[in-house]
């Protein structure tokens, strides 16, 4: 019924049925939705559950939304992980950095953040002699610093210069981001946050700053925001020719 004048008797019956149906749907949604949400949180928070390869975490960065000179993501990462630096830029760890590029022929300029690309076929994992550099089942590439001997071969092997070596004693590490002298480290995709159902610090900071250039999500899930965007607009991976299938993609370069 799309006009206001109805027969009173019909109206009452219809509205009664409608109300009942609406109530039913409402009750259904109300009972299912928390279950669905809680299930997601439970998957993220459930202690004792190992991560599986059902999920593959990825990031999509839109360079067109990324402003040259803005370093919100870098600051957020440094704060989150306690990367205070020592004033020695050549040896200080940088897990994420802003790269400013200018096409030599066309003059087009862009700016974007580069961090560990969390490849599906990581060369750093291949070359690590002790297996300290490893890929978790959900796609996050990490360094097991209990096993790392500090040989720096993974740093030679990374095509993205994502890894840093800790060159000095450290103090007051963040409790959720242990790091120490003599081991190699890189962006962990904020694994401590991801395991708690949150997003990496850089993504949150970019959104909070109003740019929204970074999207984080499960690229195995076709319904996630990141997958939809990847399907809708062209994207590329840095050094795609190497066939590493990175989890971090870029648009707008």
């Amino acid at each position, binding site marked *: 019924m799309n006009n206001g004048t109805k027969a009173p008797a019909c109206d009452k019956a219809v509205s009664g049925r409608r109300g009942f149906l609406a109530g039913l749907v409402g009750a259904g949604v109300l009972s299912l939705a928390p279950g669905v949400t809680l299930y997601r949180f439970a998957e993220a928070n459930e*202690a004792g559950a190992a991560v599986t390869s059902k999920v593959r975490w990825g990031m999509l960065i839109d360079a067109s939304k990324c402003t040259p000179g803005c370093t919100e993501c870098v600051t957020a990462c440094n704060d989150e992980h306690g990367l205070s630096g020592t004033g020695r830029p050549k040896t200080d760890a940088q897990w994420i950095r802003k790269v400013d590029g200018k096409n030599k022929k066309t003059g087009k300029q862009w700016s974007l953040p580069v961090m560990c690309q969390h490849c599906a076929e990581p060369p750093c994992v291949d070359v690590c002699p002790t297996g300290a550099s490893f890929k978790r089942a959900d796609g996050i590439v990490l360094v*097991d*610093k209990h096993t790392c001997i500090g040989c720096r071969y993974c740093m030679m092997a990374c095509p993205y210069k994502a890894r840093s070596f800790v060159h000095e004693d450290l103090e007051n*590490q963040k409790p959720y981001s242990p790091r120490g002298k003599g081991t190699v480290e890189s962006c962990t995709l904020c694994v401590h946050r991801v*395991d708690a159902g949150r997003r990496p610090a850089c993504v949150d900071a970019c959104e909070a700053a109003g740019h929204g250039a970074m999207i984080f999500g499960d690229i195995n899930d076709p319904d996630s925001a990141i997958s939809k965007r990847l399907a809708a607009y062209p994207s590329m991976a840095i050094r795609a020719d190497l066939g590493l299938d990175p989890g971090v993609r870029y648009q707008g370069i």
Partner: protein
Amino acid sequence: MVRWLLALTMIGVLSAAALVTVAQATDSQTVNSQTVNTQTVNSRVPIPFVPKGKGDVCVRDVAFMRANHMELLLHQRDATVHQGVRPKESRLNACLDCHAVAGKGGKPVSYKDPKHFCRACHDYAAVSIDCFACHNSAPTGAEVAGQ
């Protein structure tokens, strides 16, 4: 041949000793090793003085912990790092929270201080651990257990 093999060994040992002495003397990062927390039993045998933790019980009983805490730590850390398994009570930070020892001004002491919980036994047994090269050895912002 035996003679100068012996001599070589002696040279090696002496140089190592010299190196270590020089190291200790010039070490700016030395953990304060002046006092080992001990109490004596029967006026003869020093035993470690282990500070009491928060609450009544640990996640496991004392006998188990004394014998197996290392195994727990090693096994659990591998599961956490490689599989993302993070049971709440098995976090290292949970251990540090309960077993924090108050130092000057009520702040929890770090591993550099001989009063640190882990040092109570590890100094006594002279078993060095390298957890706290990477991990923060004191809870950040947590309440400190009374001593």
